[in-house]
């Protein structure tokens, strides 16, 4: 299948390894990956911080960049969530009916990575090998906006050699929330502290998630604590083979 990758602004600029792993994984599974040149960002930060009008040109750019794609895959639950549940609404709110309809069309063809692997490709075992103790943070937007359910866990369980341990209070937010982490830094930090102590308590050496943004938040807290726990995107675990 010809897969258009929406790599996301955060992965492009700060966590390119997540994008590389997604490309390698999809290629290993026998698919052609294209990266539409016009792409930038989904505009979620603007929408969620209260700037729908400023988000509009970003959304328009995104829709245009992916209008010809057969299927769009993104390694981010929150970006997929924004594309599916915010783009058309924001466009409509700004009186852009044509754009709203185009955004709905793009949204229908857009999948978060674990959704794509599980639902479109019908895979549970992607042939990965990862002999480490791993715990998984399901991320709020994957869980509650996209409703990915246990798809990431099913994929992880099938990884050869993995020692997958349950994360206590896994479904509780890590406190990132985009600009929330800065606007309400104290509350965000308190939420992060509980998330980190749950992660460290599992004894896992690797923390996975389906979203680079949550991993950035928890990871930069873990890095400050010098905990030794490595944050890795789901794609980075699934990419590995023996």
């Amino acid at each position, binding site marked *: 299948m010809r897969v258009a990758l929406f*790599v996301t*602004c955060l*992965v*492009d*600029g*700060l*966590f*390119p390894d997540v*994008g*590389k792993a997604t*490309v390698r994984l999809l290629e290993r599974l026998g698919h052609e990956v294209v*990266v539409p040149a*016009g*792409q*930038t960002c989904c505009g979620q*930060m603007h*929408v*969620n*911080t*209260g*700037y*729908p009008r*400023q*988000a509009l*040109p*970003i959304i*328009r*750019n995104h829709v245009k*960049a992916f209008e010809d794609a057969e299927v769009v895959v993104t390694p981010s639950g929150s970006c997929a969530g924004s594309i599916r549940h*915010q783009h058309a*609404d924001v466009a409509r709110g700004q009186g852009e009916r044509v754009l709203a309809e185009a955004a709905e069309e793009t949204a229908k063809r857009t999948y978060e990575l674990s959704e794509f692997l599980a639902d479109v490709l019908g895979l549970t075992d992607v042939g990965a090998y990862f002999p480490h103790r791993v715990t998984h943070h399901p991320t*709020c*937007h994957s*869980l*509650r906006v996209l409703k990915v359910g246990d798809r990431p866990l099913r994929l992880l369980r099938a990884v050869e050699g993995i020692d997958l341990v349950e994360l206590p209070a896994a479904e*509780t*937010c890590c*406190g*990132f*929330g*985009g*600009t*929330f*982490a*800065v*606007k*309400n*830094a*104290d*509350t965000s*930090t*308190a*939420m*992060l*502290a509980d998330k980190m102590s749950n992660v460290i308590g599992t004894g896992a050496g690797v923390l996975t998630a389906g979203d680079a943004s949550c991993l950035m938040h928890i*990871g*930069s*807290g873990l*890095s*400050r604590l010098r905990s030794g726990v490595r944050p890795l995107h789901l794609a980075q675990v699934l990419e590995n083979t023996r």
Partner: protein
Amino acid sequence: MTFLGMPAGRGNLTGAPFPEAARTALKDAQLRRNLAKATTTIRAKRAGVVAELPDWAELRAAGAAIKDQVLADLDEHLVRFEEALTARGTTVHWARDADEANRVVTDLVLATGTEEVIKVKSMATAEIGLNEALAAVGVHAVETDLAELIVQLGNDRSSHILVPAIHRGRAEIREIFRRHMPGVDPDLTADPRALAEAARKHLRHKFLTVDVAVSGANFGIADTGSLVVVESEGNGRMCLTLPRTLISVVGIEKLLPSWRDLEVFLQLLPRSSTGERMNPYTSVWTGPTEGQTSHVVLVDNGRTATLADPDGRAALRCIRCSACLNSCPVYERTGGHAYGSTYPGPIGAVLSPQLTGVVENPTLPFASSLCGVCYDVCPVAIDIPSMLVHLRGRVTEAKRTTPESTAMRALAWVMSDARRWRRFTRLGKFGRTASRHVPLPGWSVARDVPRPPEETFRDWWEAR
């Protein structure tokens, strides 16, 4: 969106900016322990009893639909409700805002000549600040709900819709009773039974001697003019039946069209609020009992203005169950006082700014990480996260130009074009060294700043 002539909500709906108020609460380790323990327990209970019902999703959809129907034709339902009440001998009063509602109630109370009224736990009277208004005319209002009584005796503020004293531990309650409850046993222990017994003795005396009661209502039935109070302790029922004058203060959104609709909510409410299959006491009254005078004060206080906003009006579906508070990771850390309003937690973060207008409450829509758990647990399916996002838009619009809005505009310019975005990410490489030393305000308090990579994804992709 708000039209002239729509009264804005006043009363106990605003406070200090959320981030500041939260900071104070976050420093209180005892508070955080109390909150975490209480919310964890009630969350588990709720999840258990909700999972028991195979038709929960349908019940929830029915609850949302009934409330939406009421809101869509609220004017007609209110007129029917008033007619039914009047026909049964209850006097109906209309209040545009908190001040008007307080004036109506204080006048009614003063006319009875009493110096004390007993109260059924009520969010509406807390919202309008009725106790303070009564105190100003020399009338003491006695809260009869145990948790409200603890808050009142401690000269404290409620921090939860359902469990106003959730932030207090047993030892603290014992201290409050010993210091402030008249005639209490000085050897009172912190045993819950002993505490409850002390409150019971104190309240029984009030029930038997005070002749005027003030209540709210969980529901009003438009068809019949019935009022419904749902409670756990039975104190409310004492207030509703014993005094000769009963004054009920009711928000205009509390109506249900017909008696039949109540069935849905009597399933949704207790399971969502206390995690019980059914609450111990449900009192329904239609008109005054013999020898009683009854009044109903219907309060707007910003509700019509909320109704006028199609993206925000679903907040008026709220049945005050507090499932969203008990599930919210922000509420769990900060407690209710940080929200500065009678309505704390996620629902407060959307309701208070709508009732008062966003300009009066600009920090509340941002008091959420948008994790979405509030929407999942809401028994009437209020999409709180989307509503928060909508209200954030109204806040930033009202504020015009700020450093943040300038930055957002610049970033939008960069992000709406791939070439501009590319140049911007390449700048990151030069920022690599700087990012190790330059702190990001807010972020670097507890978190390291991620270092931009040598090569962006796009550079890698194109060089491949």
